[in-house]
């Protein structure tokens, strides 16, 4: 009888150790999944901002080509702002903002472009 009782105690102990360990591991996995989601969203936002900047530098229209994008349940809003820094140079600011589980997120990148005209010739040196 005493031995049956001990087997039950052992089983309970084993189950609780296993449960604690698995709980800890699962929390780790949950945090990793959240981080992965945040990274994916950040990466998508970077791609949109880069696209907007390249569009502006290339002189294309409209810029940004995708001012609002819905991707995997998240809406990204992209904006471009061009401000003259003088008669010959402009500062280009591209922002992307979205909302996730942590709240409002935003990235902002800047660059500059001159007003130098380009020449598309028949041949170039």
């Amino acid at each position, binding site marked *: 009888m005493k031995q049956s009782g001990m087997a039950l105690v052992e089983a309970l102990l084993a189950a609780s150790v296993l449960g604690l360990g*698995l709980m800890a591991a699962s929390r780790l996995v949950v945090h990793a999944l959240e981080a*992965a989601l945040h990274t994916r969203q950040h990466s998508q936002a970077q791609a949109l901002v880069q696209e907007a900047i390249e569009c502006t530098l290339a002189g294309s229209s409209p810029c940004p080509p995708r001012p609002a994008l819905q991707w995997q349940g998240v809406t990204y809003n992209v904006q471009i702002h061009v401000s003259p820094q003088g008669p010959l140079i402009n500062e280009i600011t591209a922002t992307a903002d979205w909302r996730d589980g942590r709240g409002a997120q935003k990235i902002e990148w800047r660059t500059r472009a001159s007003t*130098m005209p380009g020449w598309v010739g028949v*041949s170039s040196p």
Partner: protein
Amino acid sequence: MTPDATQRGAASLLLVLGLVVLATLASGLASRAVLMDLLTTHARGQTLQARHAAQAALAAAEADLLLAFGQMPATDPFADASMRAPCPDGFAGPRWQCARLPLASGNTWGAWRLEADAVRDLVAAPHVWRLHARAQRAPGQGQAGIRSAVFVPVLHPLLADATQAAVVLNGCYSSSPDSQWQLCPSASGPSCSGGGTTTVVLSHFVPDSDGNGVLSSAERDTCLAVPVNSLPAGAIVRGPAAPVGRNPCNRASWRSVLGDITPEQLRAWSDAQAANGLHSLSQPARSIYWVDSPADWTQSLGSPQAPVLLIFSREACAQRCPRMASGVQIHGTVFLDAGCDDEKLRGWQAATIDGLLAVEAGLPMVAGFGLVRGQAYARQAWSLSWPEGIDPRQVQRVNGSLRSDTP
């Protein structure tokens, strides 16, 4: 407790611990993958931001050039000795001239330090400037470089309809009795015979002696009195179709040979080559010589593969244009800027010129030995590569020239 029970308990414990370790390992590996993903995204973001900062440096450099060439007279950064800089890797040697651009909008941009260099080929493409821009943050926080090329209005394209004559004048021609000049068209070969009916001498000015508004054959023959034995059979001596004025000097020879290139541009190009260490024996050899000295010329220059442009300026011809010592051979073009004053070239002596002799005046009473052989490579020294139809008066980006560069 029986020994069996103890063993079962220990086995259970080990099994449980093993399962916990496995679960922890699995979640740890998954977290590691996520961490790698996070670091990669972060690194990519830093790289892109570094590239944007380098683009900002390039924009600042381009704005500097627009500013420098938007004012008159244009400011040439390469002409400023204080801006000289070591050339980047891959641009060693005297043919490359490099300058550190000051970046009027500033060398810092937020946390970034910006730099830009201009590099050009002084022999083959002085009008194409490569801009190398770099941006750097604190060590380990990102750096990037990009480069681009721009056309700069420091020269002009070659004339499409440039004359092929061996001698170009802006006045009359005559020989002294003892002169031994030979004028050969480019098709005549080294023996100066044959060549068919090609123009050997072209003059942009023949005086209208009788003032009737028409140039007669007699007037042309009197002005362009090239002895028959100075020319191969069939060679043509040509003058203008109608009378033209030459006072003030119309610079017709300069325009017909050099087109829209200005004396200041050629002088600057010559000075840049000399200052960068190019000379007649360097590799590559110097190609443009602007001479202000009135001393007679004693140096042979150029080769069929590397012809030169030798210009004796108005200053050199202030009293009389420098003569060329016997034995001197020039491959390329020799230009004498006498400002339409024929007396500065009275009794002028040439040596051997393989290419083109152009004079901004006439050649009265040429003396001594002179051999001018027209050559197809006469204009090669300043024949640069320009896109068809380009406006050479503007600073313009060479589209498609943007590249990544080593920071």
